[in-house]
């Protein structure tokens, strides 16, 4: 049966084709647009919050009148954010960006669309499960967002939801419910990704011939599979504390606002921190590994030569995956944990930095001697290398117990992880969007506006996050509602203004990106089938691929990055090209 017959069979209903689709490509695009929506809403929240940081106590311009009228009276009276609303924005920004924005973008969108194509599969192993993952993610995410509408508002205890504060604060019940739904969605996705990668490979696609992106998604899926259930369990326990009156996290004799809390007690607040970070440290690698995979694909293609150290990159990724389960407590050096345990986590943390540096080194070394094509996706991939480097290296002082005593909970931490996740992951995924857009829609994004977007974004991101290192070293604590309330913060207050203006400018530079995407989808011209002259299997089928992807099952004859092979007619040989190319 050929692909046209497939297509016609599925033309019947709009609903089964675009809404409740079983096709991994449609589900991937659903994830793409939904996660972009969540990323924008999380970005919107932080733009509002940054006004308070730059100009504390002043009414928000432009939207101030609107929010004071739309929101409950005591949240933003006269357009000035109150501490209560500020805390909601902070907690929801973190939650939305991590769990509803970047993971669904890196795994749900890119993984779903590209992974089956790169291994030559007709679809995911479990198409129905795949659809269910999306249809849990969307309502879970909307529930999270809708918690702003509740009396008392959304969760306001930070994205880490530390107990016992989170158990006492309003809004947390819906946060927990939404998290359980989102985690379930991720778990189904992880089962699907691992099974697909292991089982659905085309003939000849051995593990050693899989592109680095596939490896990165595989390791990511294992992390999701094994690290998310502990947070699910921890969330269930916190939910019980809030709903059923248990005291898993409430110690005996807890006093709140001058009164003894009515609870049986006997719980352990530090238990939540352990369980939360047991997920949330592997989660960091869930955020960064797919980005590394995307960058590896683009760099191999853009340098026109095989990736330097394919085996070392893959080995490092697997090692990172394993190690990421034994570093979690470096987030907790100041939580009263025994110092002996601190030493253990210090050592494991230093060890896990080695493979990350190895991956980065291989990627940088891959540039040597390459005939680099400075296309838009390549620019993003090249920017990833130093920027992720800054993010990674600034993490080392946080992993050393002695320096962490000073830096813990300062803006330095915020600067560090935003360099990893924003200038690292988001830059890489933006590059990936330019790279695979011709695959998704058969059209190429405009190059000029792509470069405008690139330079503006890179400049503004550094403008947002670099000042945070200076603030953090000056001792400015994170999560402060009014940064001018303490004298020692005043010296670095201008940094907040720089950071905020950069954030708003960063938003303006996303407009060409969004316009570019929608203009190209509707008005763009079709481009050739393999515009980047890439070797991997996703380019061996039509763009966009029909239902079932490949007309006939591809047969793989070689590794993923056969660029500039000596004696070859052209500078690339596709993975499915027969021996005599």
């Amino acid at each position, binding site marked *: 049966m050929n692909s046209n017959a497939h297509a016609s069979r599925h033309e019947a209903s709009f609903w089964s084709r675009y809404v409740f689709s079983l096709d991994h490509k449609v589900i991937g695009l659903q994830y793409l647009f939904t996660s972009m929506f969540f990323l924008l809403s999380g970005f919107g929240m932080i733009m509002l919050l940054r006004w308070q940081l730059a100009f504390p106590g002043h009414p928000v311009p432009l939207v101030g009148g609107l929010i004071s009228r739309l929101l409950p009276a005591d949240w933003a009276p006269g357009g000035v954010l109150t501490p209560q609303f500020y805390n909601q924005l902070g907690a929801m920004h973190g939650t939305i960006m991590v769990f509803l924005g970047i993971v669904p973008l890196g795994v749900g969108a890119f993984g779903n669309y590209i992974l089956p194509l790169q291994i030559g599969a007709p679809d995911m192993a479990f198409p129905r499960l795949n659809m269910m993952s999306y249809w849990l993610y969307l309502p879970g995410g909307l529930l999270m967002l809708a918690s702003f509408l509740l009396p008392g508002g959304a969760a306001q205890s930070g994205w880490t939801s530390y107990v016992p504060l989170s158990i006492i604060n309003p809004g947390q019940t819906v946060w927990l419910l939404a998290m359980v739904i989102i985690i379930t969605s991720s778990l189904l996705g992880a089962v699907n990704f691992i099974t697909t990668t*292991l*089982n659905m490979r085309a003939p000849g696609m051995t593990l050693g011939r899989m592109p680095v992106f596939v490896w990165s998604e595989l390791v990511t899926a294992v992390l999701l599979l094994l690290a998310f259930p502990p947070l699910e369990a921890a969330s269930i326990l916190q939910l019980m504390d809030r709903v059923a009156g248990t005291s898993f996290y409430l110690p005996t004799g807890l006093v709140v606002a001058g009164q003894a809390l009515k609870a*049986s007690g006997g719980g352990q607040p530090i238990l939540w921190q352990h369980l939360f970070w047991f997920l949330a440290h592997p989660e960091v690698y869930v955020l960064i590994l797919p980005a590394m995979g995307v960058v590896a694909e683009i760099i191999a293609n853009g340098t026109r030569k095989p990736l330097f150290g394919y085996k070392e990159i893959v080995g490092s990724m697997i090692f990172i995956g394993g190690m990421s389960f034994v570093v979690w407590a470096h987030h907790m050096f100041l939580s009263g944990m025994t110092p002996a345990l601190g030493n253990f986590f210090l050592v494991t943390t230093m060890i896990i930095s080695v493979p990350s540096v190895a991956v980065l080194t291989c990627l940088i070394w891959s540039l040597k001697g390459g005939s680099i094509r400075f296309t838009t996706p390549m620019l993003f991939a090249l920017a990833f290398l130093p920027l992720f480097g800054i993010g990674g290296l600034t993490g080392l002082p946080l992993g050393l117990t002695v320096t962490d005593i000073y830096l813990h909970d300062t803006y330095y931490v915020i600067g560090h992880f935003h360099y990893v996740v924003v200038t690292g992951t988001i830059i890489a995924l933006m590059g990936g969007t330019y790279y695979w857009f011709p695959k998704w829609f058969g059209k190429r994004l405009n190059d000029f506006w792509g470069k405008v977007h690139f330079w503006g974004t890179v400049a503004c991101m550094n403008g947002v996050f670099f000042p945070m290192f200076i603030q953090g070293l000056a001792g400015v604590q994170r999560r402060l509602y009014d940064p001018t309330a303490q004298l020692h913060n005043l010296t670095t207050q201008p940094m907040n203004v720089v950071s905020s203006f950069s954030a708003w400018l960063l938003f303006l530079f996303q407009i060409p990106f969004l316009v570019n995407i929608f203009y190209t989808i509707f008005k763009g011209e079709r481009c050739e089938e393999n515009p980047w002259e890439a070797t991997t299997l996703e380019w061996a089928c039509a763009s966009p691929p029909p239902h079932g992807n490949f007309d006939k*099952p591809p047969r793989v004859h070689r590794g993923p990055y056969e660029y500039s092979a000596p004696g070859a007619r052209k500078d690339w040989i596709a993975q499915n090209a027969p021996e005599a190319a």
Partner: protein
Amino acid sequence: MSAQAAAVHGGGEYASTGIPNGKLGVWLFLASEIMLFATLFTTYVVLRISAPSWPRGWEELNVPLGALNTLVLITSSVTMVLAYAKAQARDKAGFYRYIGLTLALSFVFLIIKSFEYKAKFDRGHFPSTNIFFAIYFTLTGLHALHVIGGIVFNSGLALWGRRHWDHPLFAGRVECAGLYWHFVDIVWIFLFPALYLL
């Protein structure tokens, strides 16, 4: 229809590893379930070690009923294996006899459990009473949810089998249901001594 097209529509199986998709998927799912319950058991251990005093399980809980329920679940695992054997042997009547028994035993488990819960509530023991009952109700409640999940899956499979008895994947799906059901059984085998006997 090519192998590729067949795989898209669930008519055939792709298996680079030699393990069918469904079976591999269930094993992976069980790995995540192990992490879920391992976390809860760890919580139990941590809270118990740090507690100044901890009630003896057999003084607070009904050991005979718990032991009976253990027996019921183990028996249901046996009938589940027999159902799978009958499905493999293409014995339709035998399959329905044993899957029916498995379902009946699952309901017996839930009924006994609900009597236990009722007795606790009558004596004024709730999750909020103390940390012991918080652990007891949360762990057994989550396990009961897994039993209900098993009932839903097994009865769905039984209904599906009435029309799709000759489906090539049928026996494989019974095996997957069995894997899950044994897992639910094993969790209880850990729960029973941990809560009732220690």
